[in-house]
């Protein structure tokens, strides 16, 4: 399925991206950050997606915005992953939703894009405390994404 995505701006470094979700609830600024700390492991980055709160200046992922555009948001996140691994081809990206339902959304996004990404990425899902190769139709709690090195 071909999903539309938002136009995305790169932030002040190559690990931050921004876009605006536009729907019935209005404009919501989204921020994606690929976080890295030595404790995570070499080349391991954590993908964080949150809403930018204009009145507090903080990023938050606890708000359910229900802006009716989750497919477009997922496609936008996928685009940033593509862009990020171009800069960091050895990166291992940890993707996890802040709730089980959000993890399921990531799973739906990966499953929908699977035909077009399976040749470019290796994806593992965490299930019953094991990392397993991603398979469509299987539920996972978290995901690891690594670009295939040709």
């Amino acid at each position: 399925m071909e999903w539309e995505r938002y136009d995305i701006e790169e932030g002040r470094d190559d690990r931050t991206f921004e876009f605006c979700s536009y729907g019935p609830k209005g404009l919501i600024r989204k921020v994606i950050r690929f976080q890295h700390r030595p404790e995570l492991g070499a080349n391991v980055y954590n993908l964080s997606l949150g809403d930018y709160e204009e009145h507090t200046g903080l990023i938050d992922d606890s708000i359910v915005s229900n802006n009716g555009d989750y497919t477009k948001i997922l496609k936008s996140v996928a685009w940033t992953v593509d862009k990020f691994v171009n800069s960091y081809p050895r990166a291992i990206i940890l993707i996890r939703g802040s709730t089980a339902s959000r993890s399921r959304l990531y799973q739906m996004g990966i499953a929908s894009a699977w035909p077009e990404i399976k040749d470019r990425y290796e994806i593992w899902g965490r299930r019953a405390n094991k990392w397993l190769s991603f398979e469509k139709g299987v539920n996972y709690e978290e995901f690891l994404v690594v670009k295939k090195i040709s």
Partner: protein
Amino acid sequence: MKNFLSLKKFHKSSRKAKTIIVKSGLFKGMEIYPVRRCTLPINENSPFLVKKMEEAIRCLQECPIPEEILKRAQG
């Protein structure tokens, strides 16, 4: 009457749209042409990013990344 507003809060994605009807806030109901992007200051020590990092570390402590994947990423 269309309004051309230079608003920090609007992003390039909305700038590209021809017009936007603002849904809430001071400019609610106004049809505007957003014209300016603003890049957010990202502070790695912000509560949100600290929380996300702690969650990620906890996740990988509970279920470490297999050597096979780590080696593959290292080439």
